[in-house]
């Protein structure tokens, strides 16, 4: 432990593991520490089930026997899906981490409207059949989607008179004659915005997000979402393995007292009687509380069910979005469902997660519209987590802190944060050409 590391990474949450992998691949000497005895931090999948009960209900809490073998459960602490054509999947492919994982498509995507749950159409047949909108609205919506598919911001001839610099998304909806319900559906269930701010902003980013949804959907058909077998906790483990393959050193269950500074610049980490030297520190906000500020809260309810969610065509995995306006909120409520088909629960069991950004002093009441869609709930674990952002960007201190995991249902913000941190820490963009092991292993 006398050596000096180029970087010490604290916490094995997904962001830290990706960063650790990128740093090791870039030739940095990395030490990666977690105070827990398991990988994943906030982005872990808890297993066995006993671990979940102990975390939420205390050290003597035990799951009832009808919930089967504890180790057949892998319960995510934060709900997210991968967009099949999104940046996380690209990152997994380019780093070769896909080779440690297996994925399945999430079976369906649903949206809540006027007290009912509707399937988001996944193909033309479903679009023709859906009662989400009337027949004439469907025609207008189709015209709009055709325009979205061919729109290219860099080619003015594809704009068809709609200027991305001067027009808002609302003006685009108006241009195509789309009503508020369709705008709601498009902005929240396709573009995956959690509030309505995008309507009054230039339409370019919204169109990009709709394209991401439809391109992701086109990839595997059933829904735009992918999910790793055995839970999201596999992702940090996969990137940790990447880091280790490139020489990263891993220590779990290692207490971290604090970061050690000299003249305002980090020089290492104190753990018990040891000081481990490192030129840079990368960490989640829980390891550098003095350099992070609380910017909000997320509530997440993990619900164990012994049945699929009603009105979802018995989907073994799905997402339901409750757009904010439908329930008089500022932010959407998300429901995600996984089950035995994803290897996260024994046969016959389902894990539903209801989550949203906290807006009131009574967060539990805020997710009621979501809980009410689930049917009978066998067990419920509720957490209200503070969301932190760094107050120090690390230029002087050389401490690079990630943001807490937000309430979005996919990984776009995770990837953006990771790439930003890497760029700040190394003053360069990550070079995916440095990944060399992919050609090494296929030695046939």
């Amino acid at each position, binding site marked *: 432990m006398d050596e000096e590391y180029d970087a010490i990474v604290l916490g094995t949450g997904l962001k830290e593991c990706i960063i650790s992998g990128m740093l090791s691949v870039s030739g940095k000497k990395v030490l990666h520490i977690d105070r827990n005895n398991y990988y994943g931090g906030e982005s872990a999948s808890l297993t066995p089930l006993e671990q979940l009960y102990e975390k939420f209900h205390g050290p003597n809490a035990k799951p009832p026997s009808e919930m089967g073998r504890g180790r057949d459960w892998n319960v995510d602490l934060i709900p997210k899906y991968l967009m099949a054509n999104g*940046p996380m999947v690209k*990152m997994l492919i380019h780093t070769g981490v896909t080779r440690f994982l297996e994925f*399945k498509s999430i079976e369906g995507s649903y949206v809540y409207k006027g007290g009912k749950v509707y399937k988001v159409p996944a193909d033309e047949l479903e679009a023709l059949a859906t009662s989400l909108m009337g027949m004439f609205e469907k025609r207008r919506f189709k015209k709009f989607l055709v325009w979205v598919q061919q729109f290219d911001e860099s080619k003015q001839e594809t704009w068809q008179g709609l200027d991305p610099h001067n027009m808002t998304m609302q003006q685009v909806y108006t241009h195509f004659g789309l009503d508020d319900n369709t705008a709601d559906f498009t902005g929240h269930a396709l573009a995956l915005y959690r509030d309505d701010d995008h309507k009054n902003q230039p339409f370019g980013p919204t169109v990009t997000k709709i394209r991401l949804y439809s391109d992701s959907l086109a990839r595997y058909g059933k829904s735009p979402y992918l999910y790793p077998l055995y839970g999201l906790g*596999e992702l940090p483990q996969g990137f940790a*393995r990447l880091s280790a*393959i490139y020489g990263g*050193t891993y220590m779990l269950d290692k207490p971290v007292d604090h970061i050690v500074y000299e003249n305002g610049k980090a020089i290492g980490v104190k753990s018990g009687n040891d000081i481990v030297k490192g030129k840079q520190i990368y960490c989640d906000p829980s390891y550098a509380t003095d350099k992070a500020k609380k910017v909000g809260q997320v509530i997440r309810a993990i619900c164990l069910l012994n049945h699929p969610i009603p009105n979802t065509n018995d989907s073994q995995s799905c997402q339901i979005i409750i757009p904010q306006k439908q329930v008089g909120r500022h932010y959407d409520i998300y429901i995600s469902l996984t089950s035995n088909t994803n*290897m996260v629960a024994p046969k016959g069991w389902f894990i539903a997660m209801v989550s949203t950004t906290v807006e009131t002093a009574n967060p539990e009441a805020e997710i009621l519209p979501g809980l009410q869609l689930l049917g009978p709930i066998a067990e419920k674990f509720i957490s209200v987590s503070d969301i932190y952002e760094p107050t120090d960007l690390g230029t002087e201190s050389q401490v690079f802190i990630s943001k807490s995991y937000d309430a979005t249902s996919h990984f776009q913000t995770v990837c953006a944060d990771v790439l930003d941190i890497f760029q700040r820490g190394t003053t360069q963009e990550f070079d995916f050409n440095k990944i060399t092991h992919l050609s090494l*292993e296929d030695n046939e």
Partner: protein
Amino acid sequence: MANRGGNSASRAGGSAGTGSNRTCQFKLVLLGESAVGKSSLVLRFVKGQFHEYQESTIGAAFLTQTVCLDDATVKFEIWDTAGQERYHSLAPMYYRGAQAAIVVYDITNQDSFQKAKNWVKELQRQASPNIVMALAGNKADMANKRTVEYEEAQAYAEDNALLFMETSAKTSMNVNDIFMAIAKKLPIGPPPGQPQDTVDVNQPAQQQKSGTCCK
């Protein structure tokens, strides 16, 4: 195992791959203390190489090698610890879906044999109950410095239903043999309970061939 490993059919050709000769792929994990020769065993098996001063990581996600049995071809997908065993920080992912394991110790290092027993216990706790386990007493070429008796290890292996051989990555003694012995014990046929409808994430992306990632 849709997205793991490459074109499994290509190698089967070596064994006069008629229609009846199936290729089955299995995940095999290596366990054991640092410096007992885990990576060296794999390199000897897969590439026929031996380096006296093998670097402590081999820089590969996993290596593949095929052995031919009478009625089937077994393709091993071999996972190395990548050094994550050093501070007992192996991820559960490592054991996940492993159908075979080789626990390695160094016959000149009694401590590594005791640690090997701990790894066997860990496998019994974490891995699939049907996993085929082998115990390899490596560095058999250094028998003059032996501290672990053959009989002692063999008795332990018998008690725990492990395959057992002393091996030498340096001379290649018993290296192919131990993998062959494992291959013979593996169930040839589709593994039960594996979900079949996983998607191949790599396939379409390779066609896209985009140089930029994540914007």
